[in-house]
């Protein structure tokens, strides 16, 4: 069984990679890459040559191109000792046009162009744009010189996949951080050093806290292994998709916290998320200087609400539980009273849900809910449990119909099975036949779908979340597509693919546990 499972997992991984690859090919080669700036306010602030350079910088940041400005090239020559600082100063400034270059500049511009062109880069020289005949540049009109090269898709995919999981290391950050190493403590200084709370902290690592406890589920957390699904461009600029999905939302959650400096105050800062940012202490403002003692100053804030994933999961899981709790007895009832009133009512309901577009009945529920005085939108500022009611019902009722339909079908198939007739011929009571023969056999295919429906809630419900303004994960993909946020599209695709692969495998495992005929093992045992 283990062998089979391992091979299934490996095949699942392969298919995930293929899916991600296909999506990458689609969006990075078929979509116009200028579209990512469609909703970027910074982009429209830049003018003329500066806009071109901004584009290049952003494209490099998001992995489209390898971008080398002339200044970087010169800086590198200095640091490698090839040229001296005066030579650098003489050559760094180049003219508005190639003809206007100083001899020193012309020499290095030639070397830059020839060198990078030989490596397959495209060298671009944007001429300076001046106001009329004056020497004053237009806004962003300075001359620019840079080389760029498209990153091949395969290496993009490779970079993406290898960058998915990062393991922290005490040599991860550069610069002088003092003695690198790990510290084990039983009394986490974040709690004032008095409360018993073991933690592992690192110096030289990206994260300060590698393992710690806090008061949020699942209470034990780690930062040693981090997942990065890809950076968002427009939806949540610069933030990784993983964080976009998992970080808490809503109002700030203020508690008394002890900063590394020993300063205790009310704050929403989550000290445990501290990340190294080089030179941040020195350059930081007074608050930073007051609270921190080293460069691990970048912290996230704790918020009251759940994460996007969290909301989707809570709503989804309640609706899944509700759906099974309602659909199983109702489906059984329909099968037992086949062609009688309960069956007919159930069929009407199933047909209604199947035939009416989901948007229509979700709005119907919304209208009814509004009439009953239930909150129809998700207000994170003043959360009540009542606001979950309508989204949960809207999600549960269609899946109830679907489950009922299949359970009824499976049950009726089983009730007509020969072994049910034989059990009846053996004089077993109808209730006994029902329990040990019909229900057990009919439930097997239903069980197969359980992992898919449980894990599927992580994906979120697009329409429902939109109608009730739930800050869930369901809207992420549609928003990303609307805003041409390719990083998010790839990240979310990967997440969806993993969820589906895992749920299919889990479904098969569950089924093999329920059904003795299905075995993952080879013949021997």
């Amino acid at each position: 069984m283990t062998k089979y499972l391992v091979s299934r997992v490996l095949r699942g991984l392969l298919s995930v990679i293929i899916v991600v690859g296909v999506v990458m090919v689609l969006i990075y080669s078929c979509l116009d890459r200028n579209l990512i700036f469609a909703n970027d306010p910074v982009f429209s602030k830049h003018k003329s040559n500066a806009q071109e350079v901004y584009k290049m910088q952003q494209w490099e940041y998001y992995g489209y191109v390898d971008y080398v400005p002339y200044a970087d090239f010169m800086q590198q020559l200095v640091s490698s000792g090839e040229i001296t600082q005066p030579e650098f100063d003489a050559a760094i400034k180049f003219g508005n046009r190639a003809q206007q270059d100083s001899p020193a500049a012309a020499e290095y511009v030639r070397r830059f162009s020839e060198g990078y062109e030989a490596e397959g880069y495209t060298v671009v020289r944007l001429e300076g744009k001046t106001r009329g005949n004056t020497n004053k540049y237009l806004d962003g009109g300075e001359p620019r010189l840079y080389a760029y090269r498209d990153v091949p898709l395969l290496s993009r995919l490779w970079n993406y996949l290898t960058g998915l999981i990062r393991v922290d290391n005490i040599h991860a950050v550069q610069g002088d951080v003092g003695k690198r190493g790990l510290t084990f403590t039983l009394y986490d200084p974040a709690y004032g050093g008095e409360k018993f709370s073991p933690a592992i902290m690192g110096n030289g690592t990206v994260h300060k806290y590698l393992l710690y406890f806090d008061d949020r589920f699942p209470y034990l957390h780690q930062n040693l292994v981090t997942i990065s699904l890809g950076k968002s461009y427009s939806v949540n600029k610069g933030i990784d998709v993983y964080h976009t999905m998992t970080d808490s939302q809503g109002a700030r959650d203020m508690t008394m916290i002890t900063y590394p400096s020993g300063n205790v105050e009310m704050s929403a800062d989550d000290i445990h998320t501290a990340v190294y940012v080089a030179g941040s202490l020195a350059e930081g403002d007074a608050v930073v200087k007051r609270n921190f003692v080293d460069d691990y100053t970048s912290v996230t804030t704790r918020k009251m609400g759940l994460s996007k994933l969290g909301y989707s999961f809570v709503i989804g899981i309640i609706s899944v539980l509700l759906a099974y709790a309602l659909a199983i007895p109702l489906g059984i009832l329909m099968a037992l009273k086949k062609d009688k009133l309960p069956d007919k009512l159930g069929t009407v309901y199933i047909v209604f849900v199947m035939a009416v577009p989901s948007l229509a009945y979700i709005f119907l529920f919304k209208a009814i809910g509004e009439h009953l005085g239930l909150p129809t939108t998700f207000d994170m500022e003043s959360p009540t449990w009542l606001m979950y009611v309508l989204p949960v019902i809207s999600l549960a009722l269609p899946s109830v119909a679907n489950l009922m339909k299949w359970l009824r079908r499976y049950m009726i198939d089983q009730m007509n099975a020969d072994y049910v007739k034989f059990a009846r011929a053996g004089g077993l009571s109808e209730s006994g036949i029902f329990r040990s023969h019909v229900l057990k056999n009919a439930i097997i295919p239903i069980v197969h779908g359980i992992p898919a429906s449980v894990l599927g809630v992580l994906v979120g419900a697009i329409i429902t979340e939109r109608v009730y303004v739930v800050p869930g994960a369901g809207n992420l993909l549609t928003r990303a597509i609307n805003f041409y946020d390719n990083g998010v599209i790839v990240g979310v695709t990967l997440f969806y693919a993993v969820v589906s692969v895992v749920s299919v495998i889990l479904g098969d495992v569950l089924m093999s546990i329920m059904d003795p005929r299905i075995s993952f093992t080879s013949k021997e045992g």
Partner: protein
Amino acid sequence: MKTEKKTSVLPERGPVDEKGREILLSLKNVDIRFGKGNSSAKVVKNVSFDIYRGETFSLVGESGSGKTTIGRAIIRVNPCSAGEIQYKGVRISGKINQALERQVIRNIQMVFQDPSASLNERATVDYIVSEGLHNFHLYKDEADRVRKVEHIIEEVGLLPEHLTRYPHEFSGGQRQRIGLARAMVMEPELVIADEPISALDVSIRAQVLNLMKKFQQERGLTYLFIAHDLSIVRFISDRIGVIYKGNIVEIAEAEELFDFPMHPYTRSLISAVPIPDPVLERDKVLLTYDPAIHDYTADQPRLEDIGGGHFVFGNEQELAQYRTLRAKGELPQWRSAESADAENEEIPAKRTGRPGRRGWRMLRRALLALAGILGVCVGLFLIFLLLAVI
């Protein structure tokens, strides 16, 4: 009618054996395996036999003996893993060119056991019958196609107005007639009939068999008849091959096989057929075959002619005995097995212990799995932690 026979890849006639009979189909040392690598199983072992033009050759054996597999190998559905199949002396197994493959498909037609499962439920009888004609363009124009289809549908005892109906509107016997029409409209030379009457009522059986006989007499057809029941096979076959667990154990002319069954399996099979005569049936002795009576450790068995085209599977010593007995017109002494009653079924060597309550087992397994996953996580974390320090 055979205007469409263009340049045939196949010869008009097959090779002729020493008795002047034309060999239409010949299997030579055919092995068929299912599955791959270690889990593969040889379901047909070193099978060789010839089918002569115009005869009815029956292959008889239990379910799982490989008889259907052989039929499917001839129509190129199952590949042979060794040996070859020749049709009119031309190899038709393995890789063959497309022209030959089309000829084979056209010339060898199959009739299946379950008439309802082998007919497309969503197609009209007209479509089902003329599908092959379409595929091979065996008609000049639409009128010619209609004429052919109507002709064959009348031949099988249905009416032209049935052509617009769907298979589910017919009874089992009528469906088998449609299956027969579908095969016969192609004007095949060889028809493989895989248990064509097993699913039918006694009275319908006779009708279908008579129809098949009629086609054979009119068209000089050759039949390969696959069956598990010897009682009918005996009266419709010219020659019968008995197959046991992938081996052909005996081939002989029908009467010869019933009069002088040499192989113990053939005898057990004959004795198992109930006789529709209360007195004879009551006095009948049921013979149970036990393959353990053969000692094939030293001398490998093979299928050999013991005289008069009567082939028996056995080793040197057995074959010698069969030959002398056959010459004297006697039957071998019945060697009964120790465990004569029960089926010899392999008992799995390894039992999965006392299984106890399934629910508990499942719970235990789930807990174990959870603990395992947790352990792996902790382990990974520790490893990464170690890596982090390096």
